[in-house]
């Protein structure tokens, strides 16, 4: 059993290598594709001639393109994503500072969305064809149709501006300087709206895919057998059918992680949440290209990691997916 898992882990990890390579290569070529001198792009507007020369030497920009690519690849492999023009510090450090805020936001949203999405999807599949099912399906279509930043804006208008129940934006109350439990409570209050906003898209997506997978699983012969054996409806639903549908749910969560990060960018802007998304946005505005491409590579690597994790989880849950 352990050997199977280890082999599986290794194979998935090796499978992720070409993806990582492709993302780094693509970032390199986008920087080259941009009009203008790549040294100016990396050094920022109006650099001193000395700094320009330094950037050129550090990135090997006076060498042939393939050597530049190798330099870029080498830097990326060692976690050197360049230096932020605005902050004047390594991009990787600037990014790492912002990770906890986004991880808190996205992690909570994904956790809640997974639970709610599965419950809705299973409930919908159980009553497939009824009005309740149609209502859940219509709501999920609506949830996947509207852009998340607009949902955020509506929630602010409703709960913060009109009703005044929740704060408009930020992660903590300004100038309050709470400590201990009061601080945790303060952050939690500020999290309600952004987490809800980010979760809406995921809930509806997970509900849709779980519903389809559950209906498919419920129509299999082994479900008929368990029913004939007199197993309770609840046990059939969760023990037998859902164990088969959960693989689809996990795959969707893994595949959609990129969309979650993109959603986090706009949600953080709408709610003034001090995370990676806000950093990404500031990088666009300040034309801080090393920070922008660095954040992109970082996000893409996280997405690939999440994908690989979800593949491994699926294979552990379903022996049929452990090919070879």
């Amino acid at each position, binding site marked *: 059993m352990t050997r199977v898992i280890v082999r599986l882990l290794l194979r998935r990890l090796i499978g992720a290598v070409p993806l990582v390579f492709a993302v780094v290569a693509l970032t390199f070529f986008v920087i080259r594709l941009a009009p203008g001198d790549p040294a100016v792009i990396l050094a920022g507007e109006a650099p001193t001639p000395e700094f320009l020369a330094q950037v050129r030497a550090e990135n090997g920009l006076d060498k042939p393109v393939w050597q530049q690519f190798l330099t870029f690849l080498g830097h990326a492999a060692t976690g050197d994503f360049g230096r932020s023009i605005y902050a004047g510090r390594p991009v990787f450090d600037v990014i790492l500072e912002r990770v906890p805020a986004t991880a808190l936001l996205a992690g909570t949203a994904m956790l809640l969305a997974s639970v709610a999405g599965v419950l809705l999807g299973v409930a919908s599949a159980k009553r497939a064809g009824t009005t309740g099912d149609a209502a859940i399906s219509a709501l999920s279509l609506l949830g996947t149709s*509207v852009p998340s930043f*607009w949902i955020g804006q509506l929630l602010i208008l409703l709960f913060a501006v009109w009703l005044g129940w929740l704060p408009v934006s930020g992660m903590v109350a300004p100038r309050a300087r709470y400590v201990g439990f009061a601080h945790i409570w303060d952050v939690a209050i500020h999290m309600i709206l952004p987490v809800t906003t980010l979760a809406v898209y995921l809930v509806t997506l997970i509900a849709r895919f779980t519903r389809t997978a559950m209906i498919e699983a419920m129509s299999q012969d082994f479900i008929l057998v368990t029913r004939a054996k007199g197993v309770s409806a609840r046990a059939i639903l969760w023990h037998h059918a859902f164990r088969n549908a959960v693989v689809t749910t996990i795959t969707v969560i893994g595949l959609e992680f990129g*969309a979650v990060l993109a959603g986090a960018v706009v949600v953080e802007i709408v709610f003034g949440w001090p995370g990676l998304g806000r950093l990404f946005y500031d990088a666009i505005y300040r034309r801080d290209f090393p920070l922008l491409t660095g954040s992109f590579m970082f996000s893409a690597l996280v997405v690939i990691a999440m994908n690989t994790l979800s593949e491994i989880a699926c294979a552990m849950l379903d022996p049929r997916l452990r090919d070879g």
Partner: protein
Amino acid sequence: MSVTIALRPPWPRPRLPSVATAVGVLLTGIVVAGAICAPLLTSADPLGLGGDILSAPTRLHPMGTDDLGRDLFARVLYGGRVSLGIGLFSGLLSVVFGVSVGMVAGFAGGVLDEVLMRVTEIFQVMPKLLAAVVVVSLVGSSLTNEVLVIGLLSWPATARVIRGRVQVLRGQEFIAAARMGGASHLRILWRNLLPNVFAYVLVSTSLQIASAIVSESFLSFLGLGDPGHPSWGLLLQQGQLFLQQAWWLTTLPGIALAMTVLGMNLLGDGLSKGRG
């Protein structure tokens, strides 16, 4: 070529559209008609400044005005032209690209299929919207760049669906018959396979246009839209600045956007069910 036609799998039976499809057609129709007939519906200039700033909806300005006194109703109608136009062109671009890749991969099989699917996988895993932001910031924002970037980043889903269908059809007798009739690969792809996956192409087109409109609004919301051609996303970006003073600036353009995307999605779902 009559043999080909006789052996072609039966077309889906025509069915009465469901309520959902009808609602989809209605929503899409209203928005498209509004965008096309914009000059007939309002005499206001979407870029023309006015003295009435941040005015709530009135008889004169049915959707209110923004911080520069521009009429929001005109901006939503003309913004529809930008959003729908970008959605249409990038949606079509992604479908043409995706269908080509999917058909070639599914039909050719072997090494070519393997290579194409690896590339597809890379594009599918890559965070599409973030990649679009990076590319547009670096190459500069214009309507053309937005269309190209969104279109060329959104094709993997279509490619996978079409490849799956072509793999099923490839082994059927009417393809073997066409082959024996001496048809070239290109002719088989164009004359025999494309008509048989066309229902899927239509569904993809509808869903891709919807998704492209959302992608465009994402780029515009991050300030990467073309300020000379304000789209719905750009209106929502401006609305964000006055969220607490002027509810109409975010609510109303957002409703137009949501109606369109929901309409196109309902249409796509309806088409895919009608496929039978």
